């Protein structure tokens, strides 16, 4: 499961905030450079997330996945499945 420390939505929301702050013209040089640095990192993070879902649909079948895992000796499908 993809659980980046910062999710796409919080990162993109923060980018919006940063741009709003920069547009306000109230930030000093140090803050501006700090915000730009943070914004770039977040844009990279978001771009990475978008890149991860832009390389072509990868379709798998759960039964095959389970079979593969079981064949790999991982020991069953896990969970307390009801019959």
């Amino acid at each position: 499961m993809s659980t980046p420390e910062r999710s796409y939505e919080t990162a993109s929301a923060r980018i919006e905030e940063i741009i709003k702050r920069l547009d306000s013209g109230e930030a000093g040089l140090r803050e501006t450079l700090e915000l730009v640095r943070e914004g770039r990192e977040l844009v990279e993070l978001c771009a990475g997330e978008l890149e991860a879902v832009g390389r072509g649909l990868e379709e798998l079948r759960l039964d095959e996945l389970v079979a593969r895992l079981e064949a790999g000796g991982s020991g069953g499908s896990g969970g307390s499945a009801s019959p």
Partner: protein
Amino acid sequence: MSETRPAGLDGSALKGPFPVGEYAAALRGQLRGFRRVQVFGEVSNLGVRAKAVYFELRDVNGALPCSMWRSDYDRLGIDLHNGTEVVLGGGCDYYPGSATSSPSFTFRATAMRVAGEGELLAQIERLRRKLSAEGLFDPQKALPRPALPRSLGVVTGEGGKARDDVLAGLRRRGWEGRLVWAFAPVQDRRAAPLIARALQDLVATGGVDAIVVARGGGSVVDLMAFSDETLCRTVALLPVPVIASVGHHTDRTLIDDVAAVSCSTPTHAAESAVRVHCGEARTAMTGHARRLQACGRRAVIERARRLEDLTRAPAEHVARQRSRLHQKLRELRAAGRRGVELRRAASAAHLTTLTRRSAAAGVEHRRAQSALGPAATDLDRVATTTLARRERDLERLRLALAAHDPERTLERGYALVSGPDGELITSATGARAARRVSLRFHDERVAARIEDGS
């Protein structure tokens, strides 16, 4: 096949033997003569053929092979499934078969309705209240739901339309991540546990960020699997958000209530699972990156310009201040000169005035002196006269005083009598009272005793 009637069984009292076809036809006649009735039970072994629909109607005590002409079935508009409870109207029938086809008994249904929808709805409602009271509608909704999942799980019927709809929704979002299909039956009695199992397996092995459970709709009976208590409890406690789409607008299934999100169609479910439009987001990110870069550059350049201005500013400021100081200095000097001149002029004027006044005073003095001359002489004379007279008066007074001086009187033979306390005694009574007295003559004192006692 011989058409001649064979001999019967030895010793048998039964009629016949009859040709089987004839007996079968008679049997059909008999069965068709049975009273037509309504029967109810659960559909199983359903088979939909070109000419007829075949199934068995069962309950716990028995079963009846049933059929319905396809034309009758299609007119009903019922989507029949195994497990559906139905009420049938019809009667017994028998297909006698032929030389090449097998005979069969059937309950030929001519009318049908799905039974127990009202009871099912009431049952769902009771379960809804129960699950709600247990707080099972909330956990899924409290789960964080990523706007842009990397991996999705989809539980749906294999080959169903829902699968295409999900794909269409994902295409619309421009999403091309990892999709794990968990195919499961989605409408009969086996469906609920298999769906629950698929969900658990997806969480355990699929590594998915969200799960879509999709079905293309159906009647309450069709969708009963999605109101199954065990399935709903499983969904409620899954650690991954479930987006339900069982495509039913009027009667919500319980999975709609326990899931994180409920959508009306699988397409919407897919769009809800991926809330970000990937293409637009990429464009937006490119824009953001450009703006950030521009902001950074602009900030630096603007500051650099300002710094440059500031660097120039002190020199200009000093020069400006210096010229201002020079100006002030010139003004001060001029003012100083002007002040000295003014004071000098004022002093000269004062001098002139004083000189003039001094001269005037001299003249005045002289005139006063000359005016005072005779008066002074008169004054001197008056003073001299007055002085001589005053000296004479003083001599006379001195003499008068000398005449009255007690010392002079004592010298002439008088004496002063005083008591022991020094007080003067001026009477004989006083002298007698004092008894001891002091007599002062002009040269010295003499103590005396008064003997003239009273």
